[in-house]
């Protein structure tokens, strides 16, 4: 018997016992559906979360900020000055795992004026690493460079929303001049917009769903901000990022040690990473995986028993047929593969039906998620997962078919023919 004849034979047997076959498939159907739904939902949750973390600089980012002193150091509060340029320089020298260092000085909420127009927005002094640490990109022009800091040049980079407000239409912002507190700055670049997700229109400028809060602002060289606006070297934020996410573990204590030195032992700083978010998310992911994985596992186990059961019943009904096949020349292996092919056909069809059911589950989950979390990303089944689900169900079915097929193959032809 060749492969196609065996498949054809399996389909025929299945069709001859439609209801029984469908019942025996139900476990496999549920198992595959749960499996595919689980992997898809977890994957889309992962994807949504990754996007969320990326928008906040990714898991490579460490935020260093001023903190209240612990109880035992409260009496030294007068000595606490916050995070300064000195800390930044010490980290640059002493923490080799840190790849990018992005100091920020918030010059304040300023009025930006151009001939004939004006806007109020946040002015921040930053360095060149601001772009990689925050995983941002430029839409046009260039960003602030090391040389701008050294020479305290008066250049500015605009956030996408700010650029849109100041230069509506197709007007080119790069090269134009603007005034902040009477100082003239030349615009050298415009940031690419970031979309923090969510339905279009929500909190956005209304054009392309650009959200205001991340796309607002004017960026100037750090040293320019110090000399022209704040007059001191206290940073409003210091963000750094490591080359590889795994380096976070070692970079954090490294930075803490350096800061304890530069702060003369004062614990007036705090390090935050996105890891806590990641841990929270992984907990959710795990609970999803376990509950749906449990359902999938149990269903597939039940499915395997169902298939084994229906195969044994079918063999019992067809003992005579097996005897006839052997009498006209079938070898044990022919009978074995005939019944294995039947198990394969049942489980493959079960897998296909399970795939259909999984679409239903995912549709339902999507609508539930959309109703409860407006920002939720919708899940779609990837072809690889469909294929994996089908292969898995066939694997389960074939495994369950082995024992019945061996029993059929071992039947003695004479006894089988005598069987009524």
């Amino acid at each position, binding site marked *: *018997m*060749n492969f196609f*004849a065996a498949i054809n034979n399996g389909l*025929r*047997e299945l069709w*001859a016992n439609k209801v029984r076959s469908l019942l025996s498939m139900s476990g496999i159907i549920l198992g595959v559906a749960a499996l595919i739904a689980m992997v898809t939902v977890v994957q889309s949750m992962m994807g949504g979360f990754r996007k969320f973390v990326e928008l906040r600089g990714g898991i490579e980012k460490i935020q260093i900020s001023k903190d209240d002193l612990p109880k035992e150091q409260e009496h030294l509060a007068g000595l606490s000055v916050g995070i300064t340029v000195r800390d930044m320089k010490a980290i640059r020298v002493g923490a080799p795992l840190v790849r990018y260092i992005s100091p920020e000085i918030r010059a304040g909420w300023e009025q930006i004026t151009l001939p004939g127009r004006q806007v109020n927005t946040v002015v921040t002094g930053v360095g060149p690493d601001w772009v990689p640490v925050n995983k941002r990109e430029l839409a046009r022009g260039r960003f602030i460079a090391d040389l701008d800091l050294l020479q305290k040049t008066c250049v500015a980079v605009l956030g996408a929303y700010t650029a849109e407000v100041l230069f509506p239409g197709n007007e080119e912002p790069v090269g134009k001049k603007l005034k902040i507190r009477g100082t003239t700055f030349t615009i050298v670049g415009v940031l690419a917009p970031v979309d923090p997700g969510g339905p279009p229109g929500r909190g956005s400028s209304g054009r392309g769903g650009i959200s205001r809060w991340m796309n607002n602002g004017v960026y100037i060289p750090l040293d320019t901000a110090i000399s022209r606006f704040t007059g001191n070297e206290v940073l409003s934020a210091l963000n750094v990022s490591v080359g590889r996410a795994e380096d976070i573990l070692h970079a954090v204590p490294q930075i803490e040690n350096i800061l304890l030195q530069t702060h003369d032992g004062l614990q007036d700083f705090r390090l935050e990473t996105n890891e806590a978010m990641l841990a929270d998310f992984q907990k959710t992911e795990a609970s999803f995986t376990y509950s749906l994985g449990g359902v999938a596992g149990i269903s597939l186990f039940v499915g395997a028993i169902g298939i084994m059961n229906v195969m044994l019943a079918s063999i019992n009904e067809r003992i*005579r*047929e097996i*005897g*006839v*096949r*052997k*009498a*006209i*020349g*079938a*070898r*044990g292996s*022919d009978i074995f593969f005939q019944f294995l092919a039947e198990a394969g056909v049942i489980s493959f069809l079960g897998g296909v039906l399970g795939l259909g059911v999984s679409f239903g589950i995912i549709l339902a989950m999507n609508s539930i998620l959309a109703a409860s979390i407006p920002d939720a990303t919708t899940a779609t089944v990837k072809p690889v997962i469909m294929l994996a689900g089908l292969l898995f169900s066939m694997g389960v079915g074939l495994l369950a078919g082995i024992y019945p097929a061996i029993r059929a193959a071992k039947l003695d*032809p*004479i006894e089988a*023919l005598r069987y009524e």
Partner: protein
Amino acid sequence: MTDSRSISFAAGPRESVPLAVLRDVRKTYVMGDEQVHALDGVNLTIDHGDFLAILGPSGSGKSTMMHILGFMDKATGGEIIFEGEDVSRISAARRAWYRANRVGFIFQAFNLLPRLSVLENVILPMRYSRECDMREATARAEHAIERVGMTHRLHHRPSQLSGGERQRVAIARSMVNRPGIILADEPTGNLDSKNVGRILELLESLLVEGLTVIMVTHDLGVAEHARRVIAMRDGKIQEDRRR
């Protein structure tokens, strides 16, 4: 040139040696302390192109001998030479090969597969012998079905046929792989007299093509058609008569 088909139905290359030789063949079943000698020292030589009828009371070992001759069962003692080769101690896979290629079985209960059509039933032995592709197998099956006069029922199920028709399809199935011998265990036992006649005619027509036929029967009238009649009793050959 002769028609290649009639050559291939002929007895094969070893015309000089007998088709099969049984020497002191025994089949003993052990049931608890008791031993049942289903075959108790059978000696028999079967020539090419012969037509044997085996008579004997129920339980005398007729079916057991057919099973052993048909590679369905192993003897517990003695020697069996088939087409010049000692087949007394061959593997299960080798026995399956002989069943698929060298012997054809016809049963009292027809034993067609109910879910397959007439054509598919007759194709089945060629699937297991793997001697030819689907197209050739179909052509050969159609030819065999034509030989038994069932061409008008190619796509019917066995359940849609009468007993006589089913047995004719079973004969087509038994000969489609061009075996050396056809073993028929009470082939007419379930048929009325009119159909018995047709089946006997068919079996006799196979002899013309050089096939060897062994037929078990209870019916003396049926046995009359054979050229050689063997009577069995208690697992032994009691009488061996050539007509």
